[in-house]
């Protein structure tokens, strides 16, 4: 397993697109969160700051910042998804998937290598989010203590799980379609437009909650909207928090199905 990881690192470390995308992600996470923070701070300087405080609380101080930052950062999962799709479609484009097998990997080894790639990327984006959340929390909490600072730190785990699940879906798109542009287009369309619209239509037009079991939605509900949304619909907010642990199980099941399918298909396919 370690040798497989080392081999994948040899492929990735010189891949410029990987570093560019990681750089963009490293700018995006603090960017979106600091922008939101700036808007909040601006609102707090207005005459209506008491109303703002009553409505929104302080979403950027501990412990709530773990949740708020996770939510905003998770909106940009499609950026690291680009790298995931490129890493698998490149193998098909250059036929290096074939060469890896010829050189001595089993088909299972090849899939383990790709799984390691997705885990690595999930870990990196989770680390980026964690650093941003910690920085924002420390700079916006007047008197941080251990109790409040780490109270909602479980959102790191939820963020990691959601990232891994959604990057796995990106991998699946690349693995099935094998062409980078097509996979990126299909994934982006499905992720940003098709599924969110379908879920909303089912919920509001047909009063059907089946959308919560759609691939993206399953893990999306691991990170519900930040606490200030509860002011608009407290019951819905409480339900979304209660449902998180169910969606942990659903996400794990989806992950198992996704990767089991990929392993099975790779074993059967001609390369």
């Amino acid at each position, binding site marked *: 397993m370690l040798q497989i990881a080392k081999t994948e690192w040899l492929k990735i470390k010189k891949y410029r697109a990987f570093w560019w995308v990681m750089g963009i992600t490293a700018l995006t996470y603090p960017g979106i969160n600091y922008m939101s923070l700036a808007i909040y701070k601006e609102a707090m300087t207005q005459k209506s700051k008491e109303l703002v405080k009553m409505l929104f609380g302080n979403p950027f101080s501990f412990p709530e910042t773990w949740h708020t930052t996770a939510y905003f950062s998770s909106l940009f999962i499609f950026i690291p998804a680009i790298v995931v799709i490129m890493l698998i479609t490149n193998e098909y484009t250059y036929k290096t998937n074939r060469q890896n*097998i*010829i050189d001595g990997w*089993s088909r299972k080894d090849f899939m383990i290598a790709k799984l390691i790639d997705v885990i690595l990327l999930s870990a990196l984006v989770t680390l980026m989010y964690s650093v941003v959340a910690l920085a924002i929390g420390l700079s916006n909490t007047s008197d941080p203590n251990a109790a409040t600072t780490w109270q909602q730190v479980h959102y790191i785990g939820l963020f990691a799980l959601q990232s891994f699940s959604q990057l796995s879906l990106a991998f699946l798109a690349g693995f099935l379609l094998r062409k980078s542009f097509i996979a990126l287009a299909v994934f982006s369309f499905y992720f940003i437009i098709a599924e969110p619209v379908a879920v909303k239509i089912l919920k509001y037009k047909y009063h059907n909650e089946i959308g919560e079991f759609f691939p993206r939605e399953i893990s999306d509900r691991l990170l519900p909207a930040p606490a200030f949304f509860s002011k608009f619909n407290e019951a819905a907010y409480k339900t979304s928090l209660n449902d998180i642990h169910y969606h942990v199980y659903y996400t794990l099941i989806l992950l198992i199905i996704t990767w089991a399918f990929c392993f099975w298909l790779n074993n059967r396919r*001609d390369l």
Partner: protein
Amino acid sequence: MPTGYLQCLKTPPVSVLTLQGISKSYGKIRALNNLSFDIPEGSIFGVLGPNGSGKTTLLSIILDVLKADNGHFLWFGHPGSPAQRKKIGSLLETPNFYHYLSAINNLKITHSISGRGDAAAIDSVLQKVNLHERRNSRFSSYSLGMKQRLAIAAALLGNPSVLVLDEPTNGLDPVGIAEIRELMLELNKKGHTIIMASHLLDEVEKVCTHVAILKKGTLLTTGAVEDVLVDEDVVEISAANPAALLTLMQKWGAAQSVSLADNRVLLVYPKGTARPEDINRYCFAQGITLNHIAIKRKRLEAKFFELTNN
């Protein structure tokens, strides 16, 4: 004649690769049809056939890139496995490398997966294929010939005892082709087994000890090149008066057939029965002095066309 061939004759052949009933279809197209043959250790084994005969499909199956529909194969008496593939140096169809990586970094990946070779070996094989000067250039900047050389270098990395090469001279200039030929002969002298698919019949004839000829997925013939090439003896003779010589040979009737080509008389005998000294003695006794007498081997090309056009 490659010395590996003589080695094969001296000792009972051990099969590096055994194919048993290998079949493969792509939809309605039958790519391979019940192929069975053995590849002896220490041979340079050529797999020949027209385009679409199944050569690359066959090599892909034995390297686990494709799954056979039926049949099985054994490497050294054991079913194919990743552990075995690590010990085999392979070049299949096209050079497959990471375009954004240099030659050295691509070979590091080959080494990392296969376990063959080390940093010094990477340097050595790049020198062997004349790519050392461009070792730090990206693969995407290479010409076709350079890409092919890198693929050969990857196959040679770590000095594997078995090489599987699909059109190894593809894209190489005449000097490169000659270098690869010499390299294969040198490796064979050291006991390496080489399995090679090629269209270049001239090269196969110069290099290979054994050959299998495929047509539309079916095995037409297989065996030592000497046995496949020659199923009859052809004696070529000439004299000052070719017409008189032709008439004399036709009257003699010792040969299976007699014909005239380019002012030389060709006498065909069953394989192993030609006696040039008897021919020479008879002609002299009949008053004709020969100025040329030789046993001709049927060229592989002629045999190839003969087999694949039937």
